[in-house]
């Protein structure tokens, strides 16, 4: 599997996701600098977490205009899957590959802790490592993870099975108590209409190693690699 990780000035989780990808894909990813306008052949493109351009103006807003994003959009249009994690999700909404926007957390503070997620849809490649309805545990670490879109968009996402992860309680109940940041309808991760682009706020790469206190990320990457073959 040839994977690629886009690196912006201020990306922080590029090495973290590269380690997880190397383990799952059997070879390290290509690291692509934001100024590149051409991409090598890739089976999966990852936009990692961090603070691209310092989160200045809006999180992901400036990165969305980087030269490399044009190439990522073109590649996504041919069906190559794109995974955006945390800041990556923010970049994907800002560049229009995914609907909606990630706003400031409801409680106005950065939150770093484990959350429980309900896998709402396991039918797609991105959630191939999970069962529908499964509750998985992953960390979030963000200031702007509050997902917002208008009601028509939210209804459409839900109707079309495009909501893949929702914040929930440990028992899998999707309610306010299980919502860490105020996201509309507890949305933690969505895919686009053509099922090729996933954006998610939680960090699967941080629980893809048994030494780090959680292994639900292993199934994420392993499942994705298997589904891509």
């Amino acid at each position: 599997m040839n994977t690629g990780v886009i690196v912006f000035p201020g990306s922080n989780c590029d090495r973290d996701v590269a380690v997880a990808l190397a383990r799952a894909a059997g070879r390290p990813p290509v690291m692509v600098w934001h100024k590149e306008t051409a991409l090598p052949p890739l089976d999966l493109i990852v936009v990692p977490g961090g603070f691209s351009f310092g989160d200045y103006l809006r999180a992901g807003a400036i990165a969305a205009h980087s030269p490399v994003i044009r190439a990522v959009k073109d590649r996504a249009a041919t069906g190559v899957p794109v995974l955006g994690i945390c800041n990556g999700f923010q970049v994907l909404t800002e560049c229009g590959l995914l609907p909606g926007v990630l706003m400031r957390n409801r409680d106005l503070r950065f939150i770093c802790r484990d959350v429980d997620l309900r896998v709402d849809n396991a039918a797609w490649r991105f959630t191939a490592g999970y069962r529908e309805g499964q509750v998985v545990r992953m960390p979030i670490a963000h200031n702007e993870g509050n997902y917002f879109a208008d009601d028509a968009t939210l209804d459409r996402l839900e109707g079309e099975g495009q909501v893949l992860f929702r914040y929930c309680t440990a028992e899998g109940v999707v309610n306010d108590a299980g919502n860490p940041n105020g996201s509309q309808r507890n949305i933690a991760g969505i895919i686009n209409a053509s099922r090729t682009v996933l954006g998610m706020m939680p960090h699967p790469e941080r629980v893809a190693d048994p030494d780090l206190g959680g292994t639900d990320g292993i199934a994420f990457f392993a499942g994705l690699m298997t589904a891509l073959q």
Partner: protein
Amino acid sequence: MTQITPALIAEHGLSEDEYARILAMLGRPPSLTELGVFSVMWSEHCSYKSSKRWLKLLPTKAPWVLCGPGENAGVIDIGDGQAIIFKMESHNHPSFIEPYQGAATGVGGILRDVFTMGARPIANLNALRFGAADHPKTRHLLAGVVAGIGGYGNCVGVPTVGGECGFDAGYNTNILVNAMTVGLADAGRIFYSAAAGPGSPIVYVGSKTGRDGIHGATMASAEFSEEAEAKRPTVQIGDPFTEKLLIEACLELMATDAIVAIQDMGAAGLTSSSFEMAAKGKVGIALDLDRVPTRETGMTAYEIMLSESQERMLMVLKPEREALARAIFEKWDLDFAVIGTITDGDRYVARYQGSVVIDLPVAPLASAAPEYDRPQAPLPAPAVIPAAAIAPAHDPLAALQQLMGSPDLASRRWIWEQYDHMVMADTVQRPGGDAAVVRVHGTAKGVALACDCTPRYCEAEPVTGGRQAVAETWRNLTAVGARPLAITNCLNFGNPEKPEIMAQFAGCLTGMRDACEALAFPVVSGNVSLYNETNGVAIPPTPTIGGVGLIEDLAHTASLALKAAGQALILIGGQEGPGWLGQSLYARQIAGLNDGAPPPVDLAHERRSGDFVRALIQEGRVATCHDIADGGLLVAVAEMALAGNMGLSLTLEGIAEANRHAWLFGEDQGRYVIACPATEAAAVIALSQRAGVAACVIGRTGGSELTLEGLGAISLAGLRDVHEGWMPGLMAAPATEA
């Protein structure tokens, strides 16, 4: 030429005597810019003039120390060709004035001190002291400082993994923000600041220079008065995004052979970094200030030299590598400017707009800063208050709940969930335990990190307090199975011109020395922050210790959380006698007694019990361990129960009712609680006897309650609510933009 008046000299924080030394050194009055240079170079913050004499007491050497105090940070060897570089610094005065930026720039500054030596930063910690919880400024300061530390550290992408936070009325008008950074480097590629090579270019990289923080170093060297609020303009503004770029660009350049010397521009900006580089290298410097990138128009030479604009580094490069270096910094969109050259001889000459604005001798200025042996007043020895003199607890479990919900012991989760403590995907033990544990990337090793100090002990009896701060740090590293290697420190005290403060300083340092020697735990870096006083009222003496230890194999480590039911709880290192309640949280909060001597620190006992516990962990016999500190034994086991979400039962067999409170809440030093399978307990006790360390079974794990046999039980869930609820309750209003 500006006239140098007595008022101008005083404004620059220089005494008449110090000015006389300047005149004698130069043979003429200084220019205004030169006066500014002396002002910052001889400020307490930069010259350590009141503390140097005492800092020399501290042990700084060991076979694993590659670089001790005197460079930007300390360097220790962790084997396999790798080194850890670390240091702690204070940013107390700016954080009181502007908490977000004061704390943020504190983090920025200490990060630079570490990566300037060639290390990729892998962890941040911080030790914070605020005023009383109900003081009107505390909430605002706490919210601002935590937001600032998180805002900077999270953006830079270095995990903030641990620290300490205390509340005491003694810090009402002088909060403390001590920030520590730990970095990983190749032992064979450490970068130093001594300049060399006459003719080599001096290069400025990073953000442009503005008017930020001019005289920040002198502010750090002066007490506050009511005009502190008016000092707002002297606080620097940090840009963590630029810092991240700087880290990546510098590390990329450091992988080549281009750098001769490198230093970050911190307190006193361009002035201190350039003088120190020249002095260490015993060379001269010729600077052209017109070439310094500025972001304001019309800046004077004075402003350029003294600006404390953040995120800037100064380097001396090999002449033939200038183009390579420039290309790297341009890739990262950072300013890169050749601003001068290294010269033969001993002169520091700076030109600006056609004139010579500085022409000073290097060595006398950098090394001949006055050094004072300030007088001390003997401090009254506190009376030992025996446990019998303190009212016994009628309901120890109620006392436990009160303590667990108090500012000293309540959960700090509200703080550390605002820090990204997992970025870089190597955090093995998260905040909330005895020490943070961070894996050495790509290896099976880990580093254990902790910050400690017990200011009430230091105030009661400084020598004991100094010992205890080092000993507790050592214990916390031991409790996770690490071999403690070395420490950094931040010595926060009041006005050293007062004999009683000087006595506190000398006492704490003497205690630190004792412990560092006995525990083979040398000091490799540190920082002194004096004049933490307002209107003449000083903070409690607070020597914050930052310790680093090595875990050779992460498969053998321990954490405080109880992990299985039916295990035996064993107390290690208990001593004869009824237990020491003097200066305990129990005595202060439950019995209302603030006086008395703190618990003595028997360093040989510390060493014996700690080495024994570490061996148990390293041999894989024990995976659950917690040291006993604030609050004593009952608090320690309660913390273990909450962390593991598992109850326990303690036996009080053999404890006389009159000594019960001392047994449960005494803060005797050098003790740990471990848990192990019940079938292993006898073996552990036998091993302890061979090691000459006391050990006894004190209870069992299991259930959902915390039980004192024969006395009663409380639910873990209820205890958790109390423990977790205090800080969110205090901070209940949502944070607002400052």
